[in-house]
């Protein structure tokens, strides 16, 4: 690639870069801010537009102009009273929480076993679990539906929850994290007479906190937003999750855009609030799975 022609010391390098970098960077940096700000505006605008529309009344939502002449909460009141939104919210909460609890426990257990125990068949099991990542959900929903109908799991919480109990992705992520924990720690624990479950719960788990945080957040958001399987397995009005409820309600509402925007806001805003609160962990989680993976 690039070859240096003379002997250059580290001090020379620093001197040259200090001299050239500072003054040259001002102009491009302002341009970068301008472009980034315009892009950011495009990214947030749909959210702003949604919120502003949700506060307009049925007539004003159709008129030009972005800012509502009068902010009204009637759309929200109508959505909540006309639908079972609180129930959908509760359903989503139950499904996402139960799934996440299972994912955290089982994925970390399998990840630990695959990363830190020695036993025959380990690589084969790991490869088989990884290969499940290539199976699209679409291919699984028909058999899941057949099983669920046979056992009467349709329109039950168990029916909504069972497909997501141990995602292969979570196993992969937790295995990566457990590989950063030194093996000696577990061997030392064994010598001190810690039981095998104790090695996992008392030594392993406390050391993979960031991994658990990332996995927990992903699992919760993923299940909160899930649509295809809940649409198949939970269409009964009392068993809908938020996305299914919003989707079917908006479909019925026809052209009542003020109500649709209010219901969309009810689905999106809680996720945005969680995102603002946990922003750092979420983004670091993406980075960890992306780069380490």
């Amino acid at each position, binding site marked *: 690639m*690039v070859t240096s022609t003379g002997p250059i010391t580290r001090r020379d*390098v620093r001197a040259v870069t200090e001299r050239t970098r500072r003054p040259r960077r001002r102009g*491009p*940096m302002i341009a*970068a*801010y301008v472009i*980034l700000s315009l892009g*950011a505006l*495009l*990214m*947030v605008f*749909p959210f702003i537009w949604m919120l502003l*529309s949700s506060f307009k009344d049925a007539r004003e939502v159709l008129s030009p102009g972005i800012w509502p002449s009068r902010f009204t909460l009637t759309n929200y009141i109508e959505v909540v009273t006309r639908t079972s939104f609180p129930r959908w919210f509760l359903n989503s909460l139950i499904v996402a929480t139960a799934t996440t609890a299972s994912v955290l426990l089982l994925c970390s*257990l*399998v990840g630990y*076993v695959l990363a830190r*125990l*020695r*036993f*025959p068949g380990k690589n084969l099991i790991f490869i088989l679990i990884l290969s*499940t990542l*290539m*199976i*699209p*959900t*679409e*291919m699984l929903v*028909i*058999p*899941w539906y057949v099983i669920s*109908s046979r056992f009467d799991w349709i329109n039950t919480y168990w029916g909504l929850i069972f*497909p997501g*109990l*141990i995602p*292969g992705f979570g196993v992969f992520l937790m295995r990566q994290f457990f590989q950063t924990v030194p093996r000696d720690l577990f061997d030392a624990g064994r010598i001190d*007479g810690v*039981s095998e479950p104790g090695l996992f719960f008392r030594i392993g788990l406390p050391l993979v906190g960031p991994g658990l945080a990332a996995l927990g957040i992903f699992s919760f*958001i993923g299940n909160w*937003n899930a*649509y*295809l399987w809940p649409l*198949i397995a939970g269409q009964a009005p009392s068993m809908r999750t*938020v*996305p*299914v409820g*919003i*989707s079917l309600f908006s*479909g019925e509402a026809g052209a009542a*855009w003020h109500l649709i925007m209010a219901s969309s806001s009810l*689905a*999106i805003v809680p*996720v*945005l609030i969680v*995102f603002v609160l946990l922003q*750092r962990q*979420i*983004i670091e989680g993406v*980075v960890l799975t*992306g*780069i380490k993976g």
Partner: protein
Amino acid sequence: MTSSTSRRRRGFSLAQRETAWAYTFLALPIFFFIAVRFWPAIQSFRLSLYTWHVNPDQRRFIGLDYYREMFGNPIFHQALKNTLLYALVTVPISIALGLGIAVLLQSIARGRGLFRAIYFAPYITPAVAVAWVWGWMYNQNFGLFNRLIIEWWDFAERIGAEWLIVQPQAFLRNPDTALYAVAAVIIWQQLGFQVVIFLAGLQGIPRSYYEAAKIDGADGWQLFRHITLPLLNPVMVFAVIITSITVLQLFDQIVNINFTDQGGPLNRTLSLALYMFNEAFGRARVGYAAAITVVLFLIILTITLIQLRVTQRRFEY
């Protein structure tokens, strides 16, 4: 304590004991992976070879008939073409934009975290609700985009620049533009993911590489072309695989963005996932729908294998 005494008493070796524990821990997860992943996947292959009946004894073996029917069906062709087109449009554009934004973010001194969060937010919001919001913005009569176009029209007329006038668009109702209108939503939602992983990739490139190249007189474009791009290759491959797999399974957005004419107009936005859903759950053609998912699986498998080959290629810097 109990474990060490039992080990001595029963005379198991350490290795045997560890194996026993490993499989004890793995028993339930292995059962789960078989029951909820492998068995259903194999079941889908099998269902695609039989006529459908609730009672397994009543299903009749028909071989590849559904596949033959499928490849002769113009709606399947349309859905397949649309699905591949979604990937071909959204993957390169979201990656190029994401990389560009990540490079800009890397160059600024303050506010990087804030910008990164703003770009990332759409990625985690529920696709269902997002699709309804975009559907409203695209609305032919009252949507935001056509309002802006009309404002622009007025403005162009006022300054007497007739050639600047843009006609209002039907967007989702026009068979020629509908797919691209949906693709824009996908790009908007996927962009933040690319920004985040490319930014992390950029931060992993040692500054000294750039400094050394600058001393040798490399300009900005050369730095990007010969240092940034090659070193970002693993991240790029990862982004392509993940985004392709996501986009090939497109469903939530398409169902909701045009709810009264899902997959329309004229099936121009129909994806394989939605086609499968309609056949299986709308028309109870379960075997045929299973055949569609097998094709989807084979496409994803092929892409993953090709891209794994690419990752394993060695690069010299």
